[in-house]
C-alpha cells in the first residue's frame, strides 16, 4: 500500500496513534482569553483531527507558572485549574474524529519579555540576558526552582483532568529546562549547575514530579534540540547523552527532536526552516537521538510532502514526522492522501508567514490558506457546492487573489472564466519566485494551477480583458484582481519615465522578471523593506553585480519576518552586498554613461552621492484601477463591497437581489497594496457564498 509507513499506527506509552503524522507544538496565539483555549483554538485543532492528523501537540510554550508570562504569544495558561473544562472541550473535539491531543508545557525562564502584563521578573539559571527578546532576568533561587517543579506537576495534572492524552515537556528553544542543561547559560556552581548530573537535575526533578502526579498511564514526552549550533552550547553528542540519560529513567514516553538552538536571530531561523532550506535539513540529528533512546522519536522541520514523510518513516530515521506547517497550509492533508487526492494537497511553501506573525505576537495564519485558524468564523477548507443559481463569474487577474476567487467560485459550481494578461498564472508570485532561494513561493501558483484545471475554469492567459470582452460574456459577477504596478512616479526627481530608454530608475519587478538586464554596479533603494528589495539585492548579487541596498527605514529587510531575514542576511553578507539604512533617495541624474543617485540622511539632512550604472527602486505598488472605474458605473452594486458582511464572512447582500447586469467586486492590490494573504482572504470570504 502506498504510504503504508505513514499509516502504520504507533503506540506512545499506552496510547495508540492512528498514523505517524503529528502537528507538533507551536504557538498558535489563539488562547487570547487569558490563556484559556478559545473556540477558535478548538476549531483549529478539530479541523486537523477531522482531516486525519494522528496526533496534535497543541500549545507551544504553554506556561505552567505565573512568572512565565502567557500574554505575549497568547499561549495556554496551565497555571490555574480554570483551564480544565476548556481542555475538555478541546479533547472532545479532537477525539471525536479519532485524533489524539497533547499539550506542550513549559516554563520559559529568560526567554520571554518582562515589560508588560504582570511585569514579571524573568528567571534563569545564571541571570544571563537573552538576545532575541532583549530580556534581562534574575538568577533563579532554590525556592523558586522547587516551586516551578511543583507547577509543572500541577499543570500536567490539569492536562490530564481535562482529558488531554499527554503532555510534552519543552526542553527546547532555550526554555528553562534546557537553560539549565546548556553550559552557555547555566554557570551555576551549586547542585543545579556544573557537572552533567547537576545540569540535568532540574529537568529530572520536573520529570519525576510530573510522573508522580499523573501516573504511568498518561503520556509524558520531552521535546529537545539535536544540537544547539553554538560553539559554547550543547553539541549533538551532548544531546545524545542527555536523551539517553532521561530515557534510562523509563519515565519518558517519547522524544521530539528539533535541530538547532534558537537564542540568536540566526539560530532561530534554523528552527522553522523557511523555503531557503533543503527538505528535512536536520533529520540526521533526530536520527542520532533515535539511536540512543528506546521510545518513539518525533521530528518536525521542513517535512511537507507525503512522499517525503513516507521516505523518512520507511527509512526508519524517526518514528513520527511532524508536519506542522504542512497542516497549517492544509489541515486535510492526511484525508487527501487517503482519498488519492495528493495533487489537491495545498503544500506548505515555507514562506513562514505563520511563524513570522507569531514572533510578533500576532495570530498564526497561512499565507495561502485563509481558512486556517478561521474555522470558527465559518471559513471552510472544503467549499460546498452552491444550492443557489449557477452564475457566470468572470475574474480578471491571475495573481493570488484572482486565482483564489476563481477557485472558490468554481468550487461553488459556477461557470468561471479567468483573464490574465501574462502568459502564466501567479501575478507577483511569479516575480517573487525569481529570487535566489525564493523559488518555492511559486508552489502557491502551482497548487492553483492544478486546482483551476481540475475545476475546469476557463483560463484566458495572455489576454488582457477590457470592457467589451467582459460584457460579451454576459457575466453575473465580475471580480477584478488586476493588481498594480511599481510606484516609481511618486517623486519626479527619481527620473522615472514610462519610456524605458529615458527612465533613470527601474523597478525590482523589472530586475527580477528579467525585463531589465542586471547592472554591474547597482544601487537599490528600498522604502518598503519587505521581500522584494532584499530579493532584488540577492538576485543582482547572484548575477555578479556589486550591490548596495539603501533604505530610509531602520534596516534593509526590516519588514521581513524573524525567521526569514536571517537567511537573506546570510546570503547578502556572503555576497558582500552593502546594507545601508537611514538614507532617502533624493534624486537621480545621468552623468555621461553613469547614473548618480543623491541620498539624503534622514536625521541630518546631509547629502551623499553614489555613482552607479543601475538604480533600482522598490517603492511598493500603485493599484491598477482603470478597468474598475470603467465598469463601476455600469455594475449593479457600483463596485461596492458590503464591509459588515465581508468582515463577518457572510454572503454579500447584493447577491440575493434581483436585477439586470452584473455585480462588480475588486480585491487584492488593485484596491490597495497589501499582501498575498490579504488578497486570498478577501477572495475567500467574498466568494465562499457566491
Amino acid at each position, binding site marked *: *500500500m502506498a504510504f*503504508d509507513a505513514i499509516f*502504520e499506527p504507533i503506540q506512545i506509552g499506552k496510547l495508540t496513534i*492512528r498514523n505517524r503524522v503529528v502537528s507538533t507544538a507551536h504557538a498558535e496565539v489563539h488562547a487570547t482569553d487569558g490563556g484559556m483555549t478559545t473556540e477558535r483554538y478548538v476549531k483549529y485543532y478539530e479541523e486537523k483531527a477531522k482531516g486525519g492528523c494522528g496526533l496534535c501537540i497543541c500549545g507551544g510554550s504553554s506556561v505552567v507558572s505565573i512568572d512565565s508570562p502567557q500574554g505575549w504569544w497568547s499561549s495556554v495558561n496551565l497555571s490555574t485549574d480554570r483551564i480544565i*473544562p*476548556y481542555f*475538555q472541550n478541546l479533547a*472532545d473535539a479532537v477525539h471525536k474524529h479519532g485524533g489524539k491531543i497533547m499539550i506542550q508545557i513549559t516554563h520559559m525562564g529568560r526567554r520571554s519579555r518582562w515589560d508588560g502584563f504582570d511585569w514579571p521578573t524573568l528567571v534563569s539559571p545564571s541571570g544571563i540576558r537573552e538576545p532575541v527578546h532583549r530580556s534581562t532576568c534574575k538568577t533563579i533561587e532554590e525556592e523558586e526552582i522547587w516551586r516551578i517543579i511543583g507547577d509543572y506537576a500541577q499543570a500536567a495534572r490539569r492536562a490530564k483532568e481535562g*482529558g488531554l492524552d499527554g503532555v510534552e515537556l519543552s526542553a527546547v528553544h532555550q526554555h528553562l529546562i534546557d537553560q539549565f542543561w546548556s553550559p552557555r547559560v547555566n554557570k551555576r556552581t551549586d547542585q543545579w549547575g556544573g557537572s552533567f548530573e547537576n545540569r540535568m537535575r532540574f529537568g529530572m526533578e520536573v520529570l519525576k514530579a510530573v510522573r508522580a502526579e499523573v501516573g504511568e498511564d498518561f503520556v509524558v514526552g520531552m521535546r529537545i534540540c539535536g544540537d544547539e549550533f553554538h560553539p559554547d552550547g550543547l553539541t549533538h553528542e551532548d544531546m545524545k547523552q542527555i536523551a539517553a540519560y532521561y530515557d534510562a529513567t523509563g519515565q519518558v514516553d517519547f522524544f521530539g527532536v528539533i535541530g538547532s538552538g534558537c537564542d540568536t536571530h540566526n539560530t532561530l531561523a534554523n528552527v522553522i526552516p523557511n523555503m531557503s532550506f533543503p527538505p528535512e535539513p536536520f533529520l540526521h540529528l533526530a536520527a542520532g537521538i533515535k539511536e540512543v533512546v528506546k521510545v518513539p522519536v518525533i521530528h518536525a522541520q521542513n517535512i511537507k510532502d507525503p512522499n517525503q514523510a513516507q521516505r523518512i518513516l520507511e527509512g526508519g530515521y524517526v518514528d513520527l514526522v511532524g508536519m506542522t506547517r504542512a497542516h497549517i497550509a492544509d489541515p486535510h492533508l492526511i484525508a487527501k*492522501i487517503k482519498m488519492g487526492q495528493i495533487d489537491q494537497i495545498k503544500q506548505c511553501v515555507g514562506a513562514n508567514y505563520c511563524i513570522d506573525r507569531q514572533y510578533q505576537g500576532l495570530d498564526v495564519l497561512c499565507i495561502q490558506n485563509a481558512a486556517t485558524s478561521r474555522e470558527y468564523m465559518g471559513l471552510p477548507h472544503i467549499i460546498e457546492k452552491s444550492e443557489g443559481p449557477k452564475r457566470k463569474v468572470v475574474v480578471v487577474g491571475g495573481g493570488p487573489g484572482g486565482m483564489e476567487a476563481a477557485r472558490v467560485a468554481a468550487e461553488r459550481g459556477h461557470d468561471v472564466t479567468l483573464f490574465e494578461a501574462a502568459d502564466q498564472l501567479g501575478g507577483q508570485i511569479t516575480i517573487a519566485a525569481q529570487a535566489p532561494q525564493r523559488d518555492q513561493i511559486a508552489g502557491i501558483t502551482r497548487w492553483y494551477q492544478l486546482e483551476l484545471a481540475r475545476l475546469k475554469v476557463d483560463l484566458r492567459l495572455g489576454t488582457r480583458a477590457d470592457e467589451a470582452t467582459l460584457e460579451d460574456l454576459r457575466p453575473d459577477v465580475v471580480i477584478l484582481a488586476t493588481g498594480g504596478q511599481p510606484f516609481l512616479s511618486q517623486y519626479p526627481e527619481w527620473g522615472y519615465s514610462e519610456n524605458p530608454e529615458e527612465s533613470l530608475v527601474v523597478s525590482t519587478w523589472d530586475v527580477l522578471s528579467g525585463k531589465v538586464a542586471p547592472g554591474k554596479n547597482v544601487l537599490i533603494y528600498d522604502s518598503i523593506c519587505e521581500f522584494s528589495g532584499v530579493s532584488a539585492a540577492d538576485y543582482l548579487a547572484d548575477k555578479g553585480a556589486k550591490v548596495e541596498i539603501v533604505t530610509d527605514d531602520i534596516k534593509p529587510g526590516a519588514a521581513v519576518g524573524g525567521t526569514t531575514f536571517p537567511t537573506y542576511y546570510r546570503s547578502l553578507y556572503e555576497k558582500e552586498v552593502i546594507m545601508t539604512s537611514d538614507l532617502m533617495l533624493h534624486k537621480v541624474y545621468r552623468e555621461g554613461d553613469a547614473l548618480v543617485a543623491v541620498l539624503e540622511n534622514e536625521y541630518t539632512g546631509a547629502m551623499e552621492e553614489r555613482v552607479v550604472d543601475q538604480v533600482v527602486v522598490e517603492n511598493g505598488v500603485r493599484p491598477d484601477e482603470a478597468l474598475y472605474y470603467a465598469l463601476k458605473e455600469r455594475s449593479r452594486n457600483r463596485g461596492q463591497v458590503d464591509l459588515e458582511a465581508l468582515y463577518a464572512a457572510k454572503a454579500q447582500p447584493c447577491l440575493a437581489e434581483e436585477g439586470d447586469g452584473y455585480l462588480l467586486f475588486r480585491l487584492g492590490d488593485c484596491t490597495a497594496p497589501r499582501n498575498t494573504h490579504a488578497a486570498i482572504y478577501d477572495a475567500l470570504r467574498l466568494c465562499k457564498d457566491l
Partner: protein
Amino acid sequence: MLDTLLPILIFSALALAVIGAVRRIRLWRQGRPARVDLLRGLAAMPRRYLVDLHHVVARDKVMSNTHVATAGGFVAAAVLMILVHGLGLGSSESMGPILGGLLLLASAAMFVGSLFVAKRRRNPPARLSKGPWMRLPKSLMAFSASVFLLTLPTLGILPAGTGSVILALALAAVLVWGLGEMFFGMTWGGPMKHAFAGALHLAFHRRPERFGEGNRSTGLKALNLDDPKAPLGVETPSDFTWNQLLGFDACVQCGRCEAMCPAFAAGQPLNPKKLIQDMVVGMAGGSDAHYAGSPYPDKPIGEHRGHPHGPIVAREGTALVDAETLWSCTTCRACVEECPMMIEHVDAIVDMRRFLTLEHGNTPGKGAEVLDNLIATDNPGGFDPGSRMHWAADLNLPLIRDMGQVDVLLWLGDGVFDMRNQRTLRALVKVLRAAGVDFAVLGNEERDSGDVARRLGDEATFQSLAKRNIATLSQYRFQCIVTCDPHSFHVLKNEYRELGGPDFNANWVVRHHSTYIAELFEAGRLHFTPWKGGRVTYHDPCYLGRYNGEYEAPRNVLKALGIEVAEMQRSGFRSRCCGGGGGAPITDIPGKQRIPDMRMNDVKETGAELVAVGCPQCTAMLEGVVDATAEVRDIAELVADALVERPAGSGGGSDSARTPQSASTRPLMKEVTP
C-alpha cells in the same frame, strides 16, 4: 413403393443414428468419471428442459416460440413418423387417421417454426455461427415438408399414387435429406447434435442443484488434493469429466455468451462460444478450421488443433487453445447466465487454469507474485499480515476474540489494505454503529478468503486459506457474517462448505452489506436524510448478482435513501462486469479497450453523475477509469453520508459550542466515532 421405401429409410437413419450415438458416447466417455445419478437425472430431464432451460430461452420470445414449434413439432413428428411410416400404423384403420392427423399437425408446426428459423438466418447477427447452421432451416423445412406431403396420401387426403413415381422419389429424396440432418446428423456431429447431447447434458448435468425455482449453484468445486492420482486440473480434453465433455457437445453456437462476454467485447482473445467449440474439437481430435463463428479476437481460425489426450495449452507454440484465452476470463458468469444449454464455461476455464498454475507454474502477469504473496502473507498485496487493522487504529473496533460471541461478525476482506476501500469500511462501521449493531471483527486472525487464488487456479493456496479461515470461524459464535466484499461473500457462503463440512455454516448466515443495511432499514434502525444529489445509477457486482442472485437489496437501500436508480441497459443479471473478477486485472491480458472503460460508458449513457457500487473490486476498476463522467461510491458510503444520527446519548459529538462550565459536568466521551 413408398410403403416399402419409407420404413427402410427411416430405420436406416435410426440405425445410423444409433451407431453415431454410440461413437459420440465413446467420445464423452474419454472423460474422467463423475458421480452422476443417471436414472434420477433422466427422470428430471424433461422438467429441466421444459422449465429451467425454457426460462433462459424465453428471454428471447420470438426465438423461444420458434423453438417450441420447431423442436416440439420435430419430436412429435419424428415419433409419429416412425409409428405411421416406419411401423406402418398409418394404414391401421383405427389408429391411422389419428396418428396421421397428428403427424400432419406436428410437421406443419415444425414447418412454420422452420420458416422463422430461416427468417433469422437471412441476416444472422454476428454472434450466430454460420457453416452447417446455415443449412439447418432448409433441412428442417425439407424434413417437415416431405413428411407432411408423404403423409397426405397415407391419410387419403391425396389418393395414393398421386403424381408420378418420379415425384414420389423426389419427395423421398427430400426426406432423405431431412432424415440425414435430423437423425444421422444428430449423432454424427451435425447441428442437430445439440438436441441429443443437450438432452443428455440436462440429465447428467454436473450441477444438478442449479435446477429448480430459485436454485443456483455457482461455487467452484474443490480439487481433491489428497488423492495423488487425481490430476491437478485439466491438461487434456480427456481430463474433463465425461459429463463436462457431454456439456460442451450440447452447444448450439447461438453466441449469446459471446454477445455478453466482457473480454470478447474488449477485444481480448476470448470468445466463450469458440472455447466450448474448441473443447468439442479437442475431444474428437482435429483442428478448428471448420468452426464457423466469430474467432477469438485477433486469433485466426485454423491454426489450432487438439487431441483428446493431447495438451489443450502447449508449453511452447500452439495447441488447442492459447493460455491467454483462458486468462482473459473475468469469471463474471455472464456466459453461463445466458447459455440456453446450461453449459458451465467458468468451471471449464478454472479447471484448465488449475493445470496451468499448479503444474506449469505459469500464471501470467502479476499472477505468480500475487500467489506468492498469498502464500507468504495471507493477502494478495504482500502486506505485513500484522498491518491488517492499521486502517482502523482510531475506530476501537471490538475483536471477536475479546467478545467471544456477537450478533454480527464483520468480515473486512483484503480491502483493509486499500485506502479507497478503507473509506467504504469506515462508512460501514459508522452505519453499524448508528444502528446499534452488536458486531466485532476478526482483526489479524482474518485471512484472504482465497477467492483470487482459486480463480487463478491455485486450488492449493485457496484450500490452505479456506481451511485456516474455517478453523478460525469455528472458534467463535455469531449469527451473521456481514461483508462489503461480494467475493468474500461468495466464497464464505458457497465455497467453504465443501471443505468445512455440512455443519460449517449451520448456525450462521452470510450477508452482503447492502442486504444487511436493507434489513436494518426495514427494521427501523436507520434513518436517512433525503438524497439531494444528482442522477444515480447502480452497477451490479457479478459476485453479488449473477453468483448470488442479490439484485434487489442494493436497489432497496438506494430507494430508502431517496434515490431513483437510472438503470443501465445492462443491469441486473445482464450487468456488464467491471473487469475486476477472476484475477483478470492481475493476469492483465491486453485487448483493444478496457472493460471498466466500457462499463463507465454504460454509466455515462444513463446520464448519471454517480454510480453506486457494492464491491471493492468494482470500485477500484471503475474509479480507475480516466475522465469518467460519474463519481463511484459504495452503497455504504452513501448510507453513511445520509445517516441521521440517533438523538442524545449516542456519542454523537459536540458540534455546537458548549460553555466550559457545562463541559466540566459532562462525562468525557471515550468512544470514538469514525
